[in-house]
């Protein structure tokens, strides 16, 4: 098995080199229609990041030591405006198939109705949608504004679980976790059985119809191993996504501060998958 681990690492290294090169030439194009269509537009910021990449680190892949890092992401639901830039950036950066059936990250819109008149309920029905994964922003909700109690957006991506059912279920070990805390798929090893897709409680995986292998968020492994942020974090105009390295006191600081200042949750905690992806501001309706 050790031999295969080395092979996988080498494979990821090779993949990272190729994708890293591509990343350098990709620009993110904000779609003008996105902000107009957003249900709850907020103050716009220029594209920013929580942890500015250092130019020196961007060259450091050959010396990258995965045991010296522990990558984690946290999401502030209150900050997400549903602009869809993260989805677009992910699709571009990772060459994700653009049809609306394949997403490494997507945004869900939750619209909670007011209770029926005369009802003793606190709140009414919850309507959830994610047209094209939220990539094009969101059209006005089908629920008339006067009937909306509250509405919010929830970005979704791989939870990079510590006890991930996808890794447990892969029959050949093509899905594995790296020493720096990322769950990855080796497409050269995956047999395309789809068991990991069934095992993921969060719907974060899909079978790529071209490569016929499982695909999912890699936290932009090709970028983070060069000291860059994942594409979705990089483009988020409201800094709703916090990303950091828990083994690096400087890079972990914004993330640690966020976690200390907010009450954080994980998705579907009852399943015991122990996601690393943390959320602040989740409503009980979010699954």
């Amino acid at each position, binding site marked *: 098995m050790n031999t295969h681990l080395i092979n996988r690492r080498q494979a990821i290294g090779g993949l990272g080199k190729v994708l890293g090169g591509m990343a350098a030439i990709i620009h993110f194009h904000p779609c003008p229609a996105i902000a107009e269509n957003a249900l709850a537009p907020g103050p716009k910021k220029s594209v920013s990041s929580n942890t500015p990449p250092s130019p020196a680190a961007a060259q450091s892949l050959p010396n990258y030591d995965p045991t010296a890092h522990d990558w984690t992401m946290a999401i502030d639901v209150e900050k997400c405006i549903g602009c869809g830039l993260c989805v677009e950036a992910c699709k571009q950066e990772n060459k994700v198939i653009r049809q609306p059936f394949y997403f490494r990250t997507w945004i869900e819109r939750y619209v909670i109705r007011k209770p029926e008149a005369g009802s003793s309920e606190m709140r009414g029905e919850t*309507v959830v949608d994610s047209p094209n994964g939220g990539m094009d922003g969101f059209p006005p909700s089908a629920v008339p504004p006067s009937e909306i109690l509250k509405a919010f957006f929830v970005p979704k991506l791989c939870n990079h679980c510590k006890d991930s059912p996808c890794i447990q279920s892969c*029959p*050949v070990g093509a899905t594995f976790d790296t020493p720096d805390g990322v769950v990855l798929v080796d497409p050269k090893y995956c047999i395309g*059985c789809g*068991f990991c*897709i*069934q095992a993921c409680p969060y719907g974060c995986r899909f079978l790529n119809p071209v490569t016929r292998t499982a695909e999912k968020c890699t936290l932009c492994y090709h970028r983070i191993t060069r000291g860059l942020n994942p594409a979705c974090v990089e483009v988020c105009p409201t800094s709703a996504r916090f990303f950091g390295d828990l083994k690096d006191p400087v890079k972990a600081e914004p993330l640690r501060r966020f976690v200390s200042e907010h009450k954080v949750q994980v998705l579907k905690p009852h399943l015991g998958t122990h996601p690393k992806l943390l959320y602040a501001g989740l409503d009980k309706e979010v699954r």
Partner: protein
Amino acid sequence: MNPDLITSLTEALAHVQGYIYPNDISLVWSVVIVVYPYLTGLVAGAFILASLVRVFHVRALEPIYRLSLLTALAFLLVAPLPLLFHLGHPERSYEVMITPHTTSPMAVFGFVYAWYLMAVLLLELWFDYRRDFVAWSRTATGLKRLVYRLLTLGVFDVSEKALHLDERMGKAITVIGIPSAFLLHGYVGFIFGSVKANPWWGTVLMPIIFIFSAMVSGIALLMFLYLAVSRLRKTPVDMACLNTIGMFLFYALVLDAAIESLDWIHRLYEAEESVDVLVLLAAGKLFYSFLLVQVLMGTLVPLGLLGTALPLQRRLPPQVLQRIYLASSLLIMTGILAMRWNVVIGGQLFSKSLRGFTTYKLEFIGHESVFTAGLLMLLPFGVLWLLTHFFWPPQKASATSAVPSS
């Protein structure tokens, strides 16, 4: 990229009900995967029926002992093919055996399968047939003679002592074989039951449900095969044997229905977060395949038919009994196929958001189509025909209770 797939998914997108996670729109496991637990279940059921003769000395079932074993072998040989057809990279399938990831139920199934084929079924058949191989290799001619000679593996000793050893070995292997058959299909149940992400699958009862449904389908298949073979060969049907199969089929079906009912009672009583979507699934998307085919036509009607025929078996004319048994076996086999459909397809129709449903459009021609699934279901019958040609020559009518096949 396959444009048909995109067209099909675009159509499915228009028919989504409620909210599904975007990646949940396509069903990863298709109708071809429905065939896999179906075939595996038939193997386990057929073997367990054979073991009734060998271990539990149910003499009435002796006429179908060898047919049961050959059926188990024919279906077992075809059982992994649906998986191969389904894999995105079938050329890498050997990795499951060479570098298995031992925490994966699917990887360990490879070993359970290999154990069952090599250590149980082939060994048992060899010890059971060794005497005949020696005899046939002397009397047969041409290709058959060569086949039988090869199958003796060079052992031509048919002394009383050697035959006694064969008998003891056969019995010992069957004793190991019964838990192995339970393991084989219980394990298929575990592949689904271990998926905690999916509340329709992830129940501890799943392996048990699979074991009982396997027994039911395997016994029903043997009932059908015995009637069909007797008809084709124009040999008389041993009614004592048929009635005994009917009895075991009835009891197995009662147990199976009880366990599945228990599963539903448990789900409804616990009424966890997922119960709403599962009730909608069973009563809506799966109305025909679950309530009508599996529950009504595949369980309640055959229970009624068998429950009426068995107490009246001495009064009813054999021809009538045979027709009741034939109808029951076909209904039960269809019901269990529907059960596999409801598990495999049903479990993917609702999203893990537990808020909505996708749709599944059956392809009729293609890689993972009804045509492929149909071929894979017919293939074991072809293999069985070949096996019976070599290893199950027509029996001479000997039983006194035998009557001509209707």
